[in-house]
């Protein structure tokens, strides 16, 4: 049976041969299935965007109960871990330079005097700005703790003055209602992102290797000599790669749901259906690399550099794509990961349906059409 340049018998013959080779190569299985799982665990446990237990030290020049109470507020918060009381400001600075602390608090000598005198006291907070995100969060937490203290103070003052505290000390209350990720647990954000990011590098690397390996060994010459068309050969090579990659995606989704406890809210069928589409685009990327490389080492390194970094940086995995500089927003379209990051998070966290994902699905379809058209064109010329 043949359709255009594709001959079913040849495609099956190549796929069959490929499956047997894969099955007999334990290193392949390790690379294709074990490594993605290792990455899932690595990233799942290592990356957390929540800031907790910020290492903190302070100098208290005031040495009164009031200033001690003020510090207690910080010590009892789960966001801060007060590691040390320094003797001098210099010591505090040294601790900061040695990265032993991320936050330093300097309570001036006139702290309680000013407060009791009804004046404004100024407390100095030194924040390590090396990690801007963390610093921003830290400042936010500091302001929150400080605000709570202020309020307590105010109430105390009012009471002492014999005045009734107002019924509602805060005229306006913010009532945040977080959607989708109610606990604001960053795992819920990371894991579905990993479903997309991990499979942006592994399937292309394996696909590129599968073809370049035959170039390097010379066995591709026997294929050229035979009546197998290059189109059938490539398709026959893709089927097993896609199968393995899909197995990997299922494994990761199971681990993410049951081990990491990231609740799968959407339709699994939709997720895996679009998953196949996504995986075929990343395999296509590997094909493109294989058409321009001759050795396995070059194919491996080339694909890694081209996919690994963009998978995490330009896919919306870490940062929203809209935050990227303009030229990088365009660049991000070179990698299909940007579409599937949205799809995966959408289905897993939000439980959205296909209608919501139309732009991403169309993006993937256009991407797939483009990458296969280019790969087949280049490979045909090279074969």
């Amino acid at each position, binding site marked *: 049976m043949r359709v255009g340049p594709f001959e079913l018998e040849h495609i099956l*013959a190549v796929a069959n041969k490929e499956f047997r080779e894969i099955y007999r190569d334990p290193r392949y299985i390790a690379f294709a299935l074990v490594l993605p799982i290792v990455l899932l665990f690595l990233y799942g446990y290592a990356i957390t965007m929540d800031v907790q237990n910020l290492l903190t030290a302070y100098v208290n020049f005031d040495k009164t109960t009031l200033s001690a109470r003020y510090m207690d507020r910080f010590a009892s918060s789960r966001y801060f871990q007060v590691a040390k009381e320094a003797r001098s400001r210099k010591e505090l600075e040294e601790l900061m330079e040695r990265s032993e602390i991320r936050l330093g608090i300097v309570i001036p000598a006139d702290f309680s005097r000013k407060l009791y005198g009804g004046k404004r006291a100024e407390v100095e907070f030194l924040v390590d700005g090396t990690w801007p995100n963390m610093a921003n969060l830290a400042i936010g937490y500091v302001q929150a703790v400080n605000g709570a203290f202020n309020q307590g103070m105010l109430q105390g003052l009012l009471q002492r003055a014999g005045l009734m505290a107002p019924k509602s000390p805060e005229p306006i209350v913010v009532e945040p209602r977080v959607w989708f990720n109610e606990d604001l647990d960053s795992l819920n954000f990371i894991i579905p992102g990993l479903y997309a990011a991990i499979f942006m590098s592994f399937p292309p690397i394996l696909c590129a290797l599968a073809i370049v390996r035959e170039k390097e*060994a*010379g066995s591709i*010459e*026997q294929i050229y*000599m035979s*009546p197998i068309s290059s189109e059938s050969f490539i398709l026959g090579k893709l089927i097993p790669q896609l199968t393995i990659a899909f197995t990997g995606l299922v494994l990761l989704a199971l681990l993410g749901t049951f081990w990491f406890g990231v609740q799968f809210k959407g339709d699994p069928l939709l997720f895996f259906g679009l998953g196949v589409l996504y995986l075929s685009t990343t395999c296509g990327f590997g094909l493109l690399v294989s058409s321009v490389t001759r050795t396995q080492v070059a194919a491996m390194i080339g694909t890694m550099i081209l996919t690994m970094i963009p998978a995490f940086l330009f896919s919306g995995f870490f940062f929203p794509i809209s935050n990227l500089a303009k030229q990088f927003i365009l660049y991000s379209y070179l990698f299909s990961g940007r579409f599937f990051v949205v799809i995966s998070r959408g289905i897993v966290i939000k439980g959205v349906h296909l209608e919501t994902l139309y732009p991403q699905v169309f993006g993937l379809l256009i991407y797939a059409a483009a990458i296969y058209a280019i790969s087949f064109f280049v490979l045909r010329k090279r074969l």
Partner: protein
Amino acid sequence: MEGRDSLHREASQEPVLRAKGLKKAYGKTLAVDGVDLEVYPGEAFGLVGPDGAGKTTTIKMLVGLIKPDSGSVAIQGQDLHENLKAIKPVLGYMSQEFTLYPTLSVAENLRFFARAYRVPDAEERERTNDLLAFSRLGPFRSRYAGRLSGGMKKKLALSCALIHTPKVLFLDEPTTGVDPVSRQDFWLLLYELLAQGVAILVSTPYMDEAERCNRVALMHEGRLLTTDTPRALCNASTSKIFELRGERASEAFFRLHQAQTSERAELYGRKLSVRVEDGQQGLKEELERIAEEKRLEVTQVPLLLEDRFVEILEAKGHKKRPMPPGGLPFRQREKGKPCIEVEGLYKYFGDFAAVDGISFEVAQGEVFGFLGPNGAGKSTTISMLIGLLHASRGHMNVSGVDMLKTPEMVKGRIGYMSQIFSLYGDLTVMENIELYAGIYGVTGGMFQARKRWVLGMTGLERFERQMTRSLSMGYKQRLALGCALMHDPEIVFLDEPTAGVDPVSRREFFDLIAAMAEKGITVFVTTHYMDEAERCERIALMYSGKIITMGTPDTLKAAKEVPKIVEVHPEDPIAAYNALSKDGWEGGIHLFGERLHVSLDEAKGRDEQSLRRDLERFRIRTIEMNAAKPTMEDVFVAFILQYERAKNQGSSETFP
């Protein structure tokens, strides 16, 4: 006589392959520079030449893997590049490298190619069984291809190339690196195909192998120098070869060298072979004078294909360079005392005895050859001799150093030149020489003298600043040898030193070896290249960890284990081959172009009388029949087969 058959062929048959004006350049280098050739059905056409001659590029253009820059290829009268799809199924191709799938079994590999060529199921079964029987791979059908021996891999690759019954078969160096027994086996398979009318184009760097072809084309630097039957090529020569045999053959060689007439003299152990052009009466008389003085026996021997190749190259200006005058800047050593002594040497890897109790001795100044197929234990032995590997047990003394006690002591006393080019390609000629001198601490006047000598003997005096990687094979080999000799070692170990080098450069190389031996340097050559083996004074044959025989090339050829060979020139060689090899002479018949080499075997009742009787019985008319000299390859095969027979009586399948 020779042309008769080709005339007959042209009248009756069209060539199945015709190439005209093939050219291919890579950058500025012309890899193939105008190749014309024709191959007929049922013919073995040999493309012979050194590495880099353009053989592989030519074959790839002939099968359509590379598009030629200009020229055309026609298969069965149709242009290849215009009808590639239609022609592909007619072609069979086997590349030089092993290109099957190592983790698929023998049967799975065959099945994959059967499906690639859409062989119908019933035919596939039949064909697979035929091919497995024919290649004797039947017992190994479920073994992974990657786990087969070198010879078996080649046979499987051939079987895969034959699954779709091609009309033209292209074999790119099918027997390079294969042991002689497997090589003979491989040719037996090819004869069957020739008998079925398949046209075979085979490339080879081995001249002795080329003699098996009906016609050969000698290829050099991208051009075909000449094309004809091997015999016609040799007959076209205007020279004769004289052999001077005796203990003092090397003295005669250096006499000729002093008289500056050594460029056509070749020293083969205790044999001097000199090519004398017709009309060179002076040289002929000088040879006789020298022979009388050195008490050497002079005989005229048949001119071989390699001699003819050299003659043609010479006519093109590629002459053997005479050795630089003034001799070698090395100490003269006393010859004859033992220099390598090995006794009861073993090396185990786990339970496996890679070297299984070998003993031998090499004298100072001797050229000693170590022969054996891949995996016989040659490399393991060498590694122990040069101190890279510790012996499991036994006694081993190299140049006065006890190798089981203080192997590191040997380092300054030996030189080693590996098969793989071991110099630094990105250093210039001079920088490489300086590097090696530096490594061994050769300085001052000694360094100057040896540097001059290396440049002189390599012929690189004006190319000191050239990048080493841009040199041709022959130059690289000589430079590598020069570097290995910088520290004036007592022994030099050479691993297949001239594999892939053109015949003129090989001859230059062996002149140097003769000069080194004359200075008393011991030369230890490992090889499975028959021509290199012939060059040694004494050879040891290693097989499955043991030395199975040892001696001078001539004594080994005359050994009783080596079968007598009768050369038969029948009128119809294929018919004669078919009749004899199917009835009573299985495996004992080899086709050498228009001739048959028949191995006699008294044990099987195959003597000259029964051969004559069978020729008569099958009504095979013969033009000529005479005794042929066994080659080193015959010797090799005979001893291995005898060893195998002694080891396991009756089981023929253990030896693929």
